[in-house]
């Protein structure tokens, strides 16, 4: 099966210049992008060895001497292509703030406590059906300097590879019904409402583990569709 990557699919993304998110003003490229045919350089991508992901890298709650504080959650889903087929054996990386909304990053000056038992980084590889699963802590909202009283809705950063270098995706996963959604220029940089809502996870009672952790499902759809559709068979 040969996959193709129509550029039209990129319409789901935010415009590069999204003035409400002020940092885009000096960083969004402004000249016309050059449309080009895909070559092997674009339609191939990295493959990961067993050294890339270690056992336990998917569980952010067991990486230190004790358990992190906060609400333990399961975040899982399926990485799929534009035809809905699971993307197997692809790398999923995530990073996030702790339960108090504080990142371990040295630049983060938010006056909320760090948690010695939480770094906030994890990675895994999807299974043969494209499924992945993390165990982590629900991140807190946190303030930022974009505008007066600006707060980011709770989110988890995701980095996913897929079948090729052009299917590469870095995004953020949000939690359902967050009251901060209407006020967040990063969330709303995605102007298509249906596309925007694809970044919001669903509460998942079926995968919630009794007496242990709530679960959220976050499916991720990457570029790539079959060059020769078989619907007529």
């Amino acid at each position: 099966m040969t996959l193709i990557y129509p550029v039209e699919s990129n319409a789901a993304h935010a415009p590069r210049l999204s003035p409400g998110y002020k940092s885009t003003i000096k960083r969004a490229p402004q000249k016309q992008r050059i449309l080009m045919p895909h070559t092997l350089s674009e339609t191939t991508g990295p493959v990961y060895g067993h050294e890339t992901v270690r056992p336990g890298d998917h569980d952010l709650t067991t990486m230190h001497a004790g358990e992190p504080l906060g609400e333990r959650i399961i975040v899982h889903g399926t990485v799929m292509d534009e035809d809905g087929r699971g993307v197997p054996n692809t790398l999923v990386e995530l990073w996030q703030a702790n339960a108090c909304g504080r990142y371990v990053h040295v630049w983060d000056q938010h006056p909320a406590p760090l948690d010695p038992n939480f770094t906030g980084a994890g990675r895994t590889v999807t299974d043969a059906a494209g499924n992945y699963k993390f165990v982590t802590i629900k991140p807190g909202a946190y303030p930022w300097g974009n505008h007066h009283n600006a707060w980011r809705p709770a989110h988890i950063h995701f980095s996913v590879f897929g079948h090729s270098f052009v299917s590469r995706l870095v995004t953020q996963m949000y939690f359902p019904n967050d009251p901060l959604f209407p006020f967040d220029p990063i969330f709303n940089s995605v102007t298509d409402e249906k596309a925007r809502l694809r970044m919001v996870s669903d509460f998942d009672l079926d995968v919630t583990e009794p007496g242990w952790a709530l679960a959220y499902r976050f499916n991720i759809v990457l570029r790539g569709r079959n060059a020769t559709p078989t619907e007529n068979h």
Partner: protein
Amino acid sequence: MPGITPSQTVGPFYAYGLTPNGEYAWNDAFTNNLLTPDVTGDKIRIEGVIYDGDGKVVPDAVLEIWQADAQGRFADPQDTRGLPNSSFRGFGRSGTTDAGEYSFDTVKPGAVPGHDGKPQAPHIVMAVFGRGMTMQSMTRIYFEDEAANASDAVMNLVPADRRATIIAKKTAPGVYRFDIHLQGDNETVFFDV
């Protein structure tokens, strides 16, 4: 059919997750050193600085590169012409320093076929992520000492007066400089891929 998941900025705080580099309690999945002990070909360093529209350096960008080996083969079975005969993987990731600097140690890639089957000039594809960037911007690194640049099909899609922005300058033996300008008169050529 489902629509794709939109991109969101990598933000300012990616380093402990994507490029911990020994500074955080996490290991690197990828680094800016693509060299393997068994790799063949010309070892090169690519280095540069990334600038914003005010000419200020960008200390919180993430750059990723993907390339063929020196024989023009990708370490991906989707390249059905044959896999590299070394453990070279061809993928690298670099954050930027407080001075906006990045670098990669790799090998100079060989030629790979273009969409028309004709060989392309040696090049590396690069994705530029950063705070203030809603998604990655894609560019290509070509090399100034390659005569094949003149006949490269992708290069020839670029207006002649902008081509220099995607050609790395040789500054020392084995060292190429490739600065990235997100905006301005010298804005780097980015591709719609």
